[in-house]
């Protein structure tokens, strides 16, 4: 009873099934490949030394990732600190307050901003943010807040943790705002009405009811932004200063894990263990971002199920 059409249907089914399986296994392939390549250094050095040592001298055989890990964490935290309030307020504004016309302006801008190349953000960082931080914020903060070590630095330029944090904040802002807006929008209208009916103002309703209901989803949005920031390479690399030292202040230069990989892949074949070390850095990035994303995924899945 098999006609040509049914055969085509079945063939296509198997081909697409195969593709889908292959893609589903891709994450595991990437993990496997990176793990295989970095196993050389993991065999040679204790993991604790790799993660906590600040001594990075590949030519002497010392591979301490601590400065890069700390640099990445600093930059990410600064970016999240700046982007979270802004993106949440934008999301709430778009979902609850904004007039249709304003939404019609902001949403396309978010779309466009989300699509712009990281390199462009880097150029923007060099041209605008770095001078702003170096010539504006830094002297200002040192003058008035210099007694706090957090704001003091012997870095003469604006290439710093703060610059990278600002650039990253602008980059992750659209994604976080878009996800958060969707989450806030998915809060059922009845929830708002029941609070408004009790005489609460709109803002109180948002603060006590909507945000609470949307809480898990907002956390998921933040996690997604976090993992984006953690893995961003080129834009950070262009403005962070690339000094191999654990940063202690907002105005210190730093070096991040992705920047480490991008800057040194050229010579990694010339020094023993170097290639393995750089691919270990990639493996760390992969593990952290995958961990974050899985977390966000389960949170969002739970929300989707609870509203259906």
């Amino acid at each position, binding site marked *: 009873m098999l006609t040509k059409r049914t055969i085509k249907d079945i063939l296509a089914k198997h081909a*697409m099934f195969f593709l889908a399986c292959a*893609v589903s296994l891709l994450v595991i392939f990437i993990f496997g490949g990176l793990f295989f390549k970095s196993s050389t250094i993991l065999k040679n050095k204790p993991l604790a030394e790799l993660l906590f040592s600040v001594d990075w001298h590949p030519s002497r055989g010392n591979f301490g990732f601590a400065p890069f890990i700390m640099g990445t964490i600093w930059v990410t935290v600064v970016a999240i600190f700046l982007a979270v309030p802004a993106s949440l307020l934008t999301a709430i504004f778009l979902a609850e307050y904004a007039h249709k016309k304003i939404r019609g302006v902001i949403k396309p801008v978010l779309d466009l901003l989300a699509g*712009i*190349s990281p*390199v462009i953000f880097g150029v923007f960082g060099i041209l605008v943010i770095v001078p702003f931080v170096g010539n504006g914020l830094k002297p200002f903060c040192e003058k008035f807040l210099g007694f706090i070590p957090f704001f003091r630095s012997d870095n003469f330029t604006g290439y710093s943790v703060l610059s990278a944090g600002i650039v990253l904040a602008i980059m992750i802002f659209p994604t976080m705002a878009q996800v958060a807006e969707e989450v806030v929008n998915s809060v059922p209208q009845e929830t708002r009405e029941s609070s408004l009916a009790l005489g609460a103002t709109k803002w109180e309703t948002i603060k006590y009811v909507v945000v609470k209901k949307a809480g898990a989803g907002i956390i998921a949005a933040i996690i997604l932004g976090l993992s984006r920031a953690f893995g961003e390479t080129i834009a950070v690399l262009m403005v962070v200063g690339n000094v191999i030292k654990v940063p202690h202040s907002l105005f210190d230069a730093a070096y991040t894990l*992705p920047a480490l990989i991008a800057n040194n892949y050229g010579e990694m074949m010339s020094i023993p263990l170097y290639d393995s070390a750089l*691919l270990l850095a990639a493996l760390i990035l992969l593990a952290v971002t995958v961990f974050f*994303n899985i977390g966000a995924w389960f949170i969002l899945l739970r929300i989707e199920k609870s509203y259906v």
Partner: protein
Amino acid sequence: MSKINKRIIEEKAFKIVMHTVCAAVVLIFLIMLATIVIKGLPGLNLKMLTHQPLRGSYAEGGGGILNAILGSVYLALGATFLAGLIGIPVALFINVYLKKNSRFATLIRFSFDVLWGIPSIVYGAFGFIIMIFFHMRSSLLAGIITIAFLELPIMTRAADSILKMVPLELKEISLSLGATRFETAFRIIFKQAFPGILTAILIGLGRGIGDAAAVMFTAGYTDSLPTSLFRPVATLPLAIFYQLGTPFPEVQQRGYTSALVLMLVILFISIFSRILTKRFQQNVLR
């Protein structure tokens, strides 16, 4: 009375903050555009767009950025084609062949969401491992494969979210006419969701053309025009990155102009996909 006032003042204050934040976002976007335009425009001329860099031009400047423009176009189109070839059928498969709450569909969606979150530098490193494995040198082909990996989850997720919105009735009707699932997927569902799928493809293209970290390892860089799949190619993002890294103003100018060109291309793709979506939507039923 005063309590009411406090509540209303709080709301007003936050409204002002929210307006400010939104204005700031638009402002930052405009400043970004303006900066790139002001810096890049002086170098933008026909010669810049139609010539490759003069030899030794990292010290002197001269010549243009045609190598990077062509390289980016080849690379991004190749990668988008490859990613679309895999991603769109998979998205159709999830939505036409599998049932709505199928576990396998959830697993595939989960994988794509995880892939979506992987940073481009990790894709670059993975591409690099593949290259070593196959004893390839950095080349256009290696770059295409790597960028295809990067675009795949972006494109498939976008296409999937569009296909999810196609009403089940349409599928039922096509099947009730005796069409196979394959015919239903490609003749009906694909057609119905076409504007959305096109947008998904364009989103992938925009990402692919703008990415630098993944192509560093795999596509390499060269001053000559791309001639072969097996040779390194220049790309616009890397052209910007490397040329700004030199201390010579003339070379830096080429970098700024590359940035302007790249930004215009990406904005064009974004706006074009918006217009397309709107135009096609007129013929699409809900």
